[in-house]
């Protein structure tokens, strides 16, 4: 089912706009994530789609052909997974999963078979009769997902479903969640502040800042061709190369960086993994810090630009702090933003 938002905005009370007028179209079966720092309006947008908040006048929200702008959440037929999971503590796992089906007043036998089906899909068989309090964080997340999915919602909305888990578990469950969401086959909107999550799980990512969608595209597009400094820095931590554009390329404090011919006049960014130690490189810098991270070293570099830059160095040994190094950047690795 396609979801179409037209001119959807939200203002809380007399405060500033939490969400500026936004247009968005999401195709059937697509997994879209809303990515941004806290306070960027991503959760507001999700709650507007859910019907938990009412949009400012003039908005239109359509699920397929149906205008749902003024429908309350209980009649929008969506599935929602909350950050805290919000499982009903007074019900068993099975009763939680069957709750939405019971609200639809389906025949008892149908509820039972549907619940069993979803329990199997989410691999919850060993926990089906447990109390919610007897579940681990990862199991709770799966129950929340199963409960939202059981009534066959038109659209699934997930609000930071991984943020309640600890770091190690989060990584393991991320791929599991992605696979489960794909197997559901419904349209999914997923809110997160973690770019790795967004890139790993979604078909398209909408990067939000200050109540607006800054850029929307596939994970590769966002990573390789950001269109604004914010997106470049937020997705993949690109670093600005501040210097003057003159003959020969970009004049930095640590040397002259040749630019590709097609580079526009806009700011130039680079990622830490593309800044390479190279004895014949055109750039000079001083090593400020060396952090060993297992697969690689992370070098803090000063004197290359006014700002401290980082380079990832793969190798058996690393330069020492205080040492001068020369660097190069492959021209195709430079991110040239439009002005």
């Amino acid at each position, binding site marked *: 089912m396609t979801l179409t938002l037209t001119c959807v905005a939200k203002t809380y009370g007399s405060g500033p706009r939490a969400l500026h007028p936004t247009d968005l179209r999401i195709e059937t079966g697509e997994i879209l994530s809303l990515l941004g720092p806290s306070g960027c309006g991503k959760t507001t947008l999700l709650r507007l789609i859910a019907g*938990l908040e009412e949009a400012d006048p003039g908005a239109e929200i359509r699920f397929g052909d149906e205008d749902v702008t003024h429908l*309350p959440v209980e009649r929008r037929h969506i599935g*929602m997974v*909350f*950050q805290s999971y919000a499982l009903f503590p007074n019900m068993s796992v099975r009763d939680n999963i069957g*709750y*939405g089906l019971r609200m639809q007043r389906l025949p008892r036998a149908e509820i039972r078979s549907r619940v069993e089906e979803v329990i199997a899909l989410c691999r919850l068989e060993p926990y089906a009769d447990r109390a919610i309090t007897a579940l681990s964080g990862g199991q709770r997340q799966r129950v929340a997902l199963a409960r939202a999915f059981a009534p066959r919602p038109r659209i699934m909305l997930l609000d930071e479903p991984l943020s309640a888990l600890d770091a190690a578990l989060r990584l393991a469950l991320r791929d599991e969640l992605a696979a489960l969401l794909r197997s559901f086959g419904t349209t999914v909107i997923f809110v997160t502040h973690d770019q790795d999550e967004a890139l790993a799980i979604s078909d398209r990512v909408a990067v939000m800042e200050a109540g607006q969608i800054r850029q929307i595209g596939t994970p590769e597009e966002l990573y390789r061709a950001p269109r604004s400094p914010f997106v470049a820095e937020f997705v993949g931590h690109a670093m600005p190369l501040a210097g003057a554009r003159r003959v020969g390329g970009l004049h930095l404090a640590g040397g002259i960086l040749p630019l590709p011919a097609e580079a526009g006049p806009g700011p130039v960014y680079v990622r830490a993994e593309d800044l390479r130690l190279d004895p014949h490189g055109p750039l000079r810098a001083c090593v400020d810090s060396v952090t060993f991270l297992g697969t690689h070293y992370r070098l803090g570099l000063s004197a290359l630009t006014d700002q401290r830059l980082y380079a990832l160095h793969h190798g058996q040994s690393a330069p020492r702090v205080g040492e001068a190094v020369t660097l190069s950047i492959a021209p195709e690795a430079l991110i040239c933003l439009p002005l």
Partner: protein
Amino acid sequence: MTARHFGTLCLLPLLIFSLAFLALPLVRLVLSSAAGEAGWGIYLQMLQKPRYLSALAQTLAVSAAVTVVALAVSTTAGLYLARNRFRGRAILLSILTLPLAFPGVVVGFMIILLGGRQGLVNQITPGHLVFAYSTFGLFLGYLYFSIPRVLLTVMAAAEKIDPALEEAARSLGAPPSRVLWDVLLPALRPAMVAAGAIAFATAMGAFGTAFTLATDIDVLPMVIYTEFTLSANFAMASALSIALGLVTWSVLLIARSLSGGAVASGG
């Protein structure tokens, strides 16, 4: 001194207090109930007297009614007050909890001003309605007394409910009545049992209000008072006191066990 010993030492004041003011008088009470002419047979006499039994039944009925109505009124109001912010909310709250400041005597006095022979209701109704000196007046007084206590407990619990729980139920298609029944009331249950227990126990033992309202209302604390002061029947007064305590205690115990294990901390 180890931490363990220190912990034990901290309990000492409570232990001394309990022994001196609770255990000793209780033992004394039990002994004095058997000190009369009838000995331990006083309990048999008590059970054979219809006046005592009807007083007990009436006390139980009034207390149960007060508990149920106070819970109903306070839960609805508490849920609303915990979720909504509006102008004058703080003032409304302080008015609602005002009865906490009054002793039972004053509450009884207020009921007389409202429903007594010279009361407001009697003056404005054509049928000259007087209810202050009846069980109904007593019920009103206890209710007035109980509502703020229950309200504060329920509100504290309602504020702790994760708003996402209610939103989750709604997103699954639950109408407001189901949200109340499936999410809010179960979440409030421990607080309601705790507050209900306090309301019930207070109503069972409340004396000031009853004493102010009338002497012809036969609730157990009044009967104990008359046995003690007017008839000087110390043994019967003691036996009735023990009966009152036991009945209240066992009703609370039953209520707690029926409402599940979460209530051990309540009441």
